[in-house]
């Protein structure tokens, strides 16, 4: 190996080391409350304003930036977030308002003696605002919303995918134990829904897997019914404890699914339609 080639290799090695040592962006803690109950962190750029009442307004970005509010049972991450952290009587903070964009992920957990409820939201853009005893979410772009309610009797999973929509959820509260994830919802379609539930019965577990597609979804808080309208395709696969299950595909223009207090779903009402039924899904 001649000297020139050796020098070239050394120079290339130095370049590689320099690339390897390229400075990573600093990540900072923007807000960390003294109780450890509220934190906004992994922030690379931020502007914070302090309101006279003790609320903190902030604009922050990161890749992604993250945060949590223990009182709300809330964790969040996004590339950009404009928010208001409101002081609580317990000396901590709540995320009272947020406008988030870029890979937004929000998780909400609540529990009580009856069981747990976990919601998961993903979208490119989300706005959230607390209003009285509600928390309103707006998804201007495509989103995924999932919720799992677990009680001693039932394990119910619900997933909704849609191009946009608005939700009114119960006020986020870790201790609420709300098993019904929303109070009202208005989601123009097409919507795609998956519901899985495992119900414990005296003779074992009963499993049911539902898939639905519709042109529109609304949730009526007064009746606690999820109403689907327009060009509905519904398929259900049941797996009873013994014997063969059923695999049913149903088309209709309207379906109404009641949500029960414990998070389970009740008897589904169908509009006029047609169905194909075959055996399947047995144990």
């Amino acid at each position, binding site marked *: 190996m001649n000297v020139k080639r050796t020098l070239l290799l050394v120079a290339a090695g130095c370049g590689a080391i320099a690339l390897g040592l390229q400075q990573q962006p600093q990540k900072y803690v923007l807000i*960390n409350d*003294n109780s450890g109950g509220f934190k906004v962190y992994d922030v690379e*750029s931020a502007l914070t304003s*302090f309101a006279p009442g*003790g609320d903190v307004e902030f604009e922050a970005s990161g890749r992604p930036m993250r945060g949590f509010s223990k009182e709300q049972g809330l964790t969040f991450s996004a590339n950009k977030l404009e928010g208001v952290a409101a*002081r609580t009587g317990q*000396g901590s903070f709540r995320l009272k308002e947020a406008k988030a964009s870029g890979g937004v992920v929000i998780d909400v957990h609540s529990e009580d003696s009856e069981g747990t409820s976990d919601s998961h939201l993903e979208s490119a853009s989300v706005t959230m605002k607390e209003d009285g005893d509600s928390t309103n979410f707006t998804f201007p772009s495509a989103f995924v919303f999932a919720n799992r309610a677990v009680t001693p009797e039932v394990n119910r999973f619900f997933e909704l995918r849609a191009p946009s929509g608005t939700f009114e959820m119960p006020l986020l509260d870790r201790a609420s134990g709300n098993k019904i994830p929303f109070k009202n919802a208005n989601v123009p379609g097409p919507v795609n829904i998956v519901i899985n539930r495992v119900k414990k019965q005296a003779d074992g577990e009963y499993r049911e897997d539902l898939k639905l597609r519709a042109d529109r979804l609304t949730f009526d808080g007064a009746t606690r019914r999820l109403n689907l309208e327009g060009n509905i395709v519904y398929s259900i696969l049941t797996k009873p404890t013994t014997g063969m299950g059923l695999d049913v595909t149903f088309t209709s223009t309207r379906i109404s699914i009641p949500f029960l207090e414990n998070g389970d779903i009740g008897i589904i009402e169908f509009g006029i339609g047609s169905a194909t039924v075959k055996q399947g899904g047995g144990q």
Partner: protein
Amino acid sequence: MIVSACLLVGCGSAPDVAPAEARSADEPGTTRVQIGAVEGRLPGAWTMEAEQSSVALQGEDDTSAIGLRVSGQLLKGDKIESRFVAASGEANTQTGRLELSGEVRVTSERDGVYLTAERLVYDKELALIIAEGRVEVHSATWVSGPFDRLVATPGLERVGTPDRFGL
């Protein structure tokens, strides 16, 4: 002319600072020097007081001071926006620039929110605090940081990374 004394350096429209002059004030056991230089046309203003210092009077509107164990105020007109302390400070009345270093602490007069840093520059023309080195912002209920560098308004109503202030 160099004066070594316990001093008060004033910049801008602080009501107790006479512009373009250096004078001694009566205070038992110490000699205080007040210096004011820059007329009140700029948005920010400050005063600085030190336990040990040297002052250079280079012209009618050009006075600089270096002090140890400094304290002072950031002002908006006659109103105190915040108070500061630091291990040392350097002030120049012509440029309106105030530089603090070592255990710097700026406390908002409005709500008690305070900023700590290793170094700080207050630019009178920008009316912005530029803090560097393990910068933290504290309130009674939360803490922010540490950041490498933060920029803040003199009353600490708004605090952010330099890019948020176009710096």
